[in-house]
């Protein structure tokens, strides 16, 4: 990362710490009866900035708990937030990774995983724009970069993780245009999960899209028409359509189906998937199973991919989570791959702005396996 970008990031961090509002989606909040994300997030697909109600929930489910006490905004805050119409947030993650085997002579790595600046302006009661400006970790911004030392630093690449304009048509319908992650799947925070990474839902997969969404107390629908964005590498460019529908027959259960059709420069994708979110106050289950048939343009062949995610979590306290996740990816020839990734861990929300997690993972394939310990500090300033 160049010094200029680094200094700008620190400056932005300090400035926004004064006036910010947060991100991150919690699909497991189905256990509290939240089917859709719109109660806590401005964005119907979750993540991004928190609504005032979401800020209250973030406080309630943190270690101090209780009610978020709001003080009257001072002159500076009123000025910096354009009298409450301009919202800011900083979202950052710092990660420590301990590997069983050495990679480039090192077992341990400590690196900034994420540093995003989020901005939103409410142009009217129905129209808002959302910007998420991110600094990518080196490995994410350049897949060919495997040098550990370089990976420990931020890349000098700034990019828009989200840049879109949204029109809230009425209480239930929203239309948005711009670039963002596709509103597909469980929307896990972990971008390395197979259901994200292998379905082109990584941190830099932000196609240009037109999104239409519907949210009611029992049903949520996300749909999008998408095309490449300017930053996509030539061979990654794809155009297509997707839809996800999730229905909650009763409190604590949501069942979903999703589909995607995409035509790319090198690969065409057809994806169908099923989702389940269930839970009670102290327990939750998240599950996703995706089947993708891909067509390799160059070789004129089809091959299939199965990706799955299953998470069981316990919440002995509001701010404490113990979880186990089981993941699997299976890809047919010519990219034959069969791998499992299972993990067990805990997450604590120390404060409405600060959380940490510790997880042990075992990644295993046919003839190899590797254990990892991941520790994360997650900062969400709003």
């Amino acid at each position, binding site marked *: 990362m160049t010094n200029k970008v680094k200094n700008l990031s620190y400056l932005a961090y300090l400035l926004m710490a004064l006036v910010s509002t947060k991100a991150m989606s919690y699909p497991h909040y189905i256990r509290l009866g939240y089917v859709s994300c719109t109660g806590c997030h401005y964005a119907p697909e979750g993540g991004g900035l928190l609504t005032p109600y979401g800020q*209250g929930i973030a406080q309630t489910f943190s270690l101090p708990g209780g009610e978020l006490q709001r003080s009257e905004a001072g002159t500076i805050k009123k000025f910096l937030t354009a009298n409450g119409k301009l919202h800011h947030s900083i979202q950052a993650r710092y990660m420590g990774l301990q590997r069983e085997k050495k990679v480039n002579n090192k077992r341990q790595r400590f690196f900034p995983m994420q540093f995003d600046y989020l901005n939103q302006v409410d142009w009217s009661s129905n129209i808002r724009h959302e910007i998420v400006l991110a600094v990518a970790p080196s490995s994410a911004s350049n897949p060919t970069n495997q040098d550990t030392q370089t990976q420990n630093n931020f890349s000098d690449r700034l990019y828009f993780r989200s840049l879109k304009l949204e029109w809230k048509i009425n209480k239930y319908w929203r239309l948005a245009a711009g670039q963002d992650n596709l509103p597909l799947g469980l929307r896990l925070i972990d971008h390395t999960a197979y259901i994200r990474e292998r379905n082109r839902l990584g941190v830099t997969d932000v196609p240009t899209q037109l999104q239409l969404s519907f949210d009611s107390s029992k049903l949520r629908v996300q749909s999008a028409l998408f095309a490449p964005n300017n930053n996509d590498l030539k061979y990654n460019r794809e155009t297509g359509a997707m839809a996800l529908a999730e229905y909650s027959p009763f*409190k604590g259960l949501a069942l979903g189906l999703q589909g995607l059709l995409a035509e790319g420069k090198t690969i065409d994708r057809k994806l169908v998937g099923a989702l389940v979110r269930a839970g009670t106050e102290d327990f939750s289950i998240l599950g996703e199973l995706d089947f993708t048939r891909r067509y390799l343009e160059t070789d004129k062949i089809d091959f299939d991919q199965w990706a799955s995610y299953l998470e069981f979590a316990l919440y002995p306290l509001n701010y404490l989570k113990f979880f186990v996740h089981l993941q699997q990816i299976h890809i047919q020839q010519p990219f034959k791959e069969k791998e499992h990734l299972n993990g067990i861990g805990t997450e604590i929300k120390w404060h409405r702005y600060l959380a940490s997690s510790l997880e042990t993972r075992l990644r295993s394939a046919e003839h190899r396996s590797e254990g990892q310990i991941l520790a994360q500090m997650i900062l969400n300033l709003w």
Partner: protein
Amino acid sequence: MTRFALLIFSIAITCKSFANAPSPVLKKFQGETSFVVETTVPGVTVEGKSSAFNQLQADIEDGPQGLALKNIKAQILAKTLKTGIDVRDEHMQKLIFEPLKNKDNTDINIVLEAKQINCLPDGTDSYSCKGEATINIGKASATIDDLLIKLTKDASSKYQGQVKLQLGLEKLGITPPSYMGVTVEDQVEVLVKFNDK
């Protein structure tokens, strides 16, 4: 003579049918009540429940004509209702129930009483009943015009059923509360499930 015989016969028939009509039996039940209320934000629904009834009873007629409910009374302490989030429970107590406290400042009871209920078999092994009811919450009270009741008797002669009703908050003099931009709607769906198992 013929007229007299007919009169005696009619009296005898009437007496017989009265003799067949079972007298209602007061049954005490256990059960659970739950409520659901939508909010101005889609996907944010407030649901709560309690099973700590002080009183849950009904007069049941069980005869050759089938099952019939005559009276129902359900009473529960408002403070036992839980929504799953402590802060929300506090808000509910503070904004909904506290203003309805009686002068003596005692704990608020929610009392549902239904009378003059008509039941008809619904073609399955259940009976569908309709009736009117009054609900008292502290010092507030409202009439419920549309009460839906289902009643079933299983093979072991145990009764179970449910009472469903819509309750308007404003009808009770309660302004629908609001928290950080999310306001609950006026109509609350209330369900009382009961059984004598």
